[in-house]
């Protein structure tokens, strides 16, 4: 076994375990912290796949921004010092059964398809080239320019909406 494989197994175990903690722990703040561990694990798996851009963006966006804002929201909105709720409701048994059936079908179908059996080929890009290729692919009209621009439009819409909600209405204290 190579060191990479050992790291991969450890990281994926931690990721799966912490993902289970996220949906099962009683304190919502602890769940948020375990979510960060999960996201970190995903980032490390990206790094192992030599997708360093995605690894860095995963840390920057998901941990640096989204998880922190999530924690912020939890700290600000609820009285969580005494919060002790169960995250599951009565129908958890049947859901587990459905998930299990789905997983069996999914895995059995995937394992027989050709996608899963292809071996990964290391990228032939050196250093910056992979990021440059990635950027060109995003902005190339023949590539993914349209989805990219649409996504930025969506974000702009969200931004304007957020500003509108936060804005003082007419007749408020200011103005």
């Amino acid at each position, binding site marked *: 076994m*190579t*060191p*990479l494989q050992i790291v991969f197994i450890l990281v994926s175990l931690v990721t799966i375990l912490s993902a289970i903690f996220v949906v099962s722990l009683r304190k919502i*703040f*602890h769940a948020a*912290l375990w979510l*960060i561990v999960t996201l970190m694990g995903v980032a490390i798996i990206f790094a192992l796949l030599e997708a*360093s*851009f995605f*690894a*860095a*963006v995963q*840390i*920057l966006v998901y*941990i*640096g*921004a989204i*998880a*922190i*804002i999530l*924690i*912020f929201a939890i*700290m600000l909105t609820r009285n969580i*010092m005494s919060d002790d709720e169960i995250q599951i409701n009565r129908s958890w048994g049947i859901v587990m059964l459905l998930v299990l059936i789905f997983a069996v079908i999914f895995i059995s179908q995937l394992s027989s398809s050709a996608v899963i059996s292809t071996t990964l080929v290391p990228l032939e890009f050196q*250093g*910056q080239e*992979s*990021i440059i290729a990635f950027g060109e692919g995003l902005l190339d009209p023949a590539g993914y320019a349209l989805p990219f621009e649409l996504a930025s439009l969506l974000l702009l819409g969200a931004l304007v909406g957020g500003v509108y909600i936060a804005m003082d209405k007419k007749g408020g204290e200011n103005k």
Partner: protein
Amino acid sequence: MKILEFLSDPIIGIENWIVQLLENWGVAPEWQTFIVYLIGAAILGTGALLFTLILIWAERKIIGRLQDRLGPNRVGPWGIFQPVADMLKIFIKEHIIPDEVDPIPYHLAPIISVASVLLLWSVVPFSDSVRGSNLNVALLFILGVGGLGELGVILAGWGSNNKYSMLAAFRASAQMISYEVPMAIVLLTSVILSGSMALGDIVKSQNIAYIFFLPLGAFIFFIASIAENGRAPFDLAEAESELVAGFNVEYSGLKFGMFYVADFLRAFTSAVIFSSIFLGGWRGPGAEQIPILGFVYLLIKSVIVWFLGVWIRGSLPRFRVDQMMAITWKFLTPLALALFIVVAFVTKLIEGTNQWLQVLIFLVINVALYVVGFAIVRKCEKEKERKVVSTKKRALAQPTNPFTQSETGG
């Protein structure tokens, strides 16, 4: 000649020797790299932490002089061994865990704080050949790891079960999220200039240091990095007069020591990153032939930048919360955005012209942007209505008081 060759680049020499040794022992090639990187990381981390001892001494001495005191002067010549004594004291101190702390966040926070600083060292190029990793997204990595530091503060504030540390955590995270914005935009401008996100390539592309291209960018980055580190005048998270001691109130002994070390080391680390991005890092006369010189140049540049930070820390009073927010959202961020757009256009326009001409054009643009930005801020400040803060007018004992000038007294 052999010894000179070795001395000019000792670290690569030692690395080659270890690789040779492992090969003779019959270790598989991928394990060889693994072991060599592991040793390198251990040495780098330990070295950085030990270097903090000197930093703490120097900073206390400098701050002492700035405040007209002597600073540490009892243990050893010029008090050099003061941090060693402090370290020993912290090691043997009782470790008090307050009641009802949230154990995992409470114990994890100092570790995350220190780790987030040490992680930054993995992407810094120390010379032409020696660096942890020429990660091709180093700048994103730096920003992301900054987010981890934030997490340490939030965990400490939350886990301590203390309202003061909680308030400090709120302040700190608001501050760090806000100041990450101008910092990221300025880093993007340096990516435009160098065409690379790897710190090693950015250093290599600086035939002329980027501070001459982007003095305004360097200025914004410097302020933002002080705020990110939470040092005076941005040390709102540790405001003694308002919050007892900030997010680390409930920590004692070694855990407090870890926050302390992280704080001092982070200041120097951001100086190292500043000098890598804007001052040309290890570059200097003869650094390519004799790689060990690169260390010296990087150290000198970083110490100068670090000293500037300490100087500011010793001279300026703390900002208020609203002032701190206004500085980033109303001044630094718009300015950084304007700089980013202008640099993106101008770089394409003057591509391929003489390098000194480029420097001149960029300098003019930077100064013009700064002047315009500052003028707008001044104008807005003048137009803003100010409430007069005063007590009611009352009868004075001596109406013709020569010291009373305004109508409201005082």
